[in-house]
């Protein structure tokens, strides 16, 4: 498999009052494992259930309750790690992160600080054709989600729902390799794409199944390169963490705002304070969460209710063998083997369902032509109806049939579009429709010749002009096409017109 080669994108530069600034961004993405049951309990993970109904005694931290780990969640973390070309740790362990919060019943979150299940990996973040950023992954660990506190149901009380408590999350931690708001959004997009290919997380950001904490600092041009050379963070500015964002748009807005806030502080001679901040989309600004952070000291220590998590290399190998083709490989294959542009390959591989559809259409056909039809006609039409590829009224077989009719010369491109609309709205076998509705191209040269003769006979003045200016042949072709209702084969018409006019 050929790998595509990429240039590194230019970092975003923000002009301050005094000089230019660059951004340095690292991300912690929390991806909910697509499992039936929770990480350490047998309660369901289903979204939107009645409050406190998807709760086992262990989730509610009842006295004496103990965690037992869900094998599937472990497998999904390993699968994700393999998908990010990361090191899998056969020995990992769970730690408790201690803090008090009403939606954290145990008073601690079970996480993996000291020995995560997945180590270093990487993600190629596509920015434009031929341009991509390689972002290093530091680690992935498994941890419990917290419950939900609802603050607006009562003026004096907060209400706590534990349905989400204990749902398995994969925390995917990047190195600070992201260099601008667009890159940050593209990073999350790419990560989401890979997770969806792997099937380890549904990527539903609206439900909070994928959320990002963003660490941002600013530096002067050149400083980041020094950091990269030495891995010494002192070359970078003090970072702030913006918590819990679940929209690509907000991620970009928040980074933009936060970078400018930090620049203003530093240029005014101040110092950025390392802290956790929240993005308020209504006001378009980040604000400090210092109140919540007060005296935080998580007192991590190994969870004595769990033994170390030991997995076998053979088990990891089995998971590796079951991995699907991932977006980068698929895209490269579409470009190198099917002759697609990187852009088209990118569009088609964005969702695995799209890519699968395309591959069925392209099977035994011209790849580029299939890509054109899938991207321009089908996607365009689906978008108009706000439909997903899985709801497409046109099957890959039907679309392939239309393409075959064009390739055989049975229909023109223009007729094909009409045919596509018929198939889309009414269904049916494209070849049959062409036959039944007389949409077939006229390739019978006798009939075309007769039509050409008629046009020539009716327009002697045009004939004279065409002999001086051969470009006017096109006018005759147009007239013939019109006369035949568009069904004449345009190439045949052109050849005959040229011959008859003696051009």
């Amino acid at each position, binding site marked *: 498999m050929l790998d595509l080669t990429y240039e590194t994108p230019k970092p975003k530069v923000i002009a301050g009052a005094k000089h230019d600034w660059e951004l340095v961004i690292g991300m912690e993405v929390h991806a909910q494992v697509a499992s039936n049951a929770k990480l350490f309990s047998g309660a369901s993970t289903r979204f939107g259930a009645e409050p406190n109904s998807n709760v*086992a005694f262990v989730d509610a931290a009842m006295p004496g309750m103990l965690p037992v780990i869900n094998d599937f969640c472990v497998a999904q973390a390993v699968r994700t790690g393999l998908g990010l070309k990361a090191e899998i740790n056969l020995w990992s362990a769970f730690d408790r992160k201690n803090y008090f919060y009403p939606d954290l019943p145990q008073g601690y979150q079970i996480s993996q600080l000291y020995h995560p299940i997945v180590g270093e990996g990487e993600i190629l973040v596509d920015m434009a054709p031929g341009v991509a950023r390689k972002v290093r992954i530091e680690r992935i660990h498994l941890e419990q989600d917290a419950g939900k506190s609802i603050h607006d149901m009562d003026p004096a009380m907060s*209400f706590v729902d534990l349905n989400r408590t204990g749902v398995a999350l994969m925390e995917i931690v990047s190195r600070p390799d992201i260099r601008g708001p667009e890159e940050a959004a593209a990073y999350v997009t790419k990560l989401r794409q890979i997770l969806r290919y792997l099937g380890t997380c549904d990527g539903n950001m609206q439900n909070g199944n994928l959320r990002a904490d963003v660490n941002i600092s600013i530096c002067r041009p050149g400083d980041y390169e020094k950091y990269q050379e030495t891995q010494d963070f002192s070359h970078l500015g003090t970072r702030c963490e913006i918590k819990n964002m679940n929209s690509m748009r907000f991620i970009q807005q928040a980074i933009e705002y936060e970078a400018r806030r930090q620049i203003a502080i530093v240029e005014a001679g101040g110092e950025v304070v390392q802290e956790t901040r929240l993005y308020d989309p209504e006001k378009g600004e980040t604000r400090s969460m210092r*109140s919540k952070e007060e005296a935080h000291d998580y007192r991590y220590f190994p969870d004595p209710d769990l033994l170390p998590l030991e997995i076998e290399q053979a088990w990891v190998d089995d998971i590796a063998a079951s991995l699907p083709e991932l977006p980068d490989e698929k895209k490269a294959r579409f470009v190198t083997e099917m002759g697609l542009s990187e852009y088209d390959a990118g569009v088609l591989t964005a969702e695995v369902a799209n890519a699968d559809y395309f591959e069925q259409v392209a099977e035994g056909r011209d790849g580029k032509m299939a890509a054109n039809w899938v991207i321009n006609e089908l996607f365009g039409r689906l978008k108009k109806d706000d439909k997903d590829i899985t709801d497409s009224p046109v099957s890959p077989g039907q679309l392939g049939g239309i393409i075959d009719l064009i390739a055989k010369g049975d229909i023109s491109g223009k007729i094909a579009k009409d045919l596509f609309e018929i198939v889309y709205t009414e269904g049916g076998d494209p070849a049959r429709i062409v036959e039944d509705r007389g949409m077939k191209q006229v390739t019978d040269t006798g009939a075309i010749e007769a039509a050409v003769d008629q046009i020539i006979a009716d327009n002697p003045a045009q004939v004279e002009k065409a002999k001086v200016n051969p470009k006017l042949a096109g006018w005759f072709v147009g007239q013939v096409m019109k006369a035949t209702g568009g069904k004449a084969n345009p190439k045949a018409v052109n050849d005959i017109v040229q011959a008859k006019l003696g051009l």
Partner: protein
Amino acid sequence: MSIDLETAAKVAKLARIKVEDDALPALADEFNTILGFIEQLNEVDVDGVEPMTSVTPQRLKRREDVVTDGHMPEKILSNAPDAREGFFAVPKVME
């Protein structure tokens, strides 16, 4: 290592246990007695010794991903000091 009043107060805060100011000196004294006792551990040569991760030779067992629990909100809430409309109620949390 000696624990002063400020440290004692900080620890009480971290543990979310209200300790009145006038009780802090006695608390700090007790801490110091206990920590003095604990500090004997500094005599032990622990170079190259792995911290114990589990006292049992068992391996962590993993359960299947099957929903076997839940669907009992009334039992989850039955002991709650304040439950309303299916939720646990607590004094307003300021974000």
